[in-house]
C-alpha cells in the first residue's frame, strides 16, 4: 500500500483537482494506495507515513520523501511527465 500526500495552499481547492487525476493514474497502474490531502503547512505531520508528495505549488521546505510538481494535472501542461514521475516513484 502506497501513501500519496497531496498538498496545496488550503488543502482543499487545487489539491482536490490533483487528487482526482492521481486517483485515476494509480488505479490505471494498479497501485494500491491511500491519499492524504492536506495544506502545505500540514505536510510535516504526514511526511513519515507518505511515499511521495504531490503539490500544486512550489514547495519551500525540504522533505525526506520524493516530491512531484502536480501543476500539470491542473494546467494540462507537463501532465504526462508528472504522471511518469509519480508512477516511477511508487513502483520502486
Amino acid at each position, binding site marked *: 500500500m502506497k501513501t500519496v500526500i497531496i498538498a496545496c495552499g488550503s488543502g482543499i481547492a*487545487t489539491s482536490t483537482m490533483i487528487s482526482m487525476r492521481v486517483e485515476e493514474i494509480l488505479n490505471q497502474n494498479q497501485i494500491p494506495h491511500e491519499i492524504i490531502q492536506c495544506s502545505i503547512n500540514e505536510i510535516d505531520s504526514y511526511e513519515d507515513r507518505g511515499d511521495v508528495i504531490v503539490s500544486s*505549488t512550489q514547495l519551500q521546505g525540504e522533505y525526506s520523501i520524493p516530491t512531484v510538481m502536480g*501543476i500539470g*494535472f491542473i*494546467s494540462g501542461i507537463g501532465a504526462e511527465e508528472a504522471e511518469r514521475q509519480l508512477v516511477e516513484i511508487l513502483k520502486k
Partner: protein
Amino acid sequence: MAVTISKLMENGRAYFCRWHSQEDLFDSLAEDLLAEGYVKDTFKQALKEREAKYPTGIVCNKYNIALPHVDSEHVQKDALIVAVLDEPIGFHRMDKLEEIIEVQVVFMLLIEGVSNHIQAIANLTSLWLDDGFMDELLKATDKERIVELVKKHEKRTIA
C-alpha cells in the same frame, strides 16, 4: 446532491472589464461580491493575503489563467465567479513563485461548504483544458452565454 459547475456559474457572476493591476481587480471584485452578498467583509483582505502567500497564476495551453480563492469562512454563497480580462494582468505563477505571467481569465470558486463540491472542484480543470470552451469564453459578453458554454462543455465531457 452533487453540485455541477453550470449550477455554480448560474449562481455566480461574470465580469468583463479592463483592470490595471491585480490589486485593482481584487478590490473591485471583492467590493462587488460583498455588495451582492456572496462574501463576508473579511474576504478582500483574505484574498490578497492568500494570493501573496500562495500565488495562483497557471500557464495553460492557450490562455493563462488564475484561480484566486480563500477559505470557506470568508464566503457566504457557493458560486463560480469568472472574470474575462480585456487586457491581461500579471499574476505570480503557482508553480514558480518568482515568475509573473500574463493572465487572461480569472476563475474564482466561492465555496461555503466543501463536502458536496468535491466533484465540481475536480471537474473545474476540464474547463480550461478545453480549448474550444476557452476560445468561446473569451468572446462571451454576458453571464448567460458563459452558463450556456459551461452546459455544452458538460455535455461533451460527462458521458
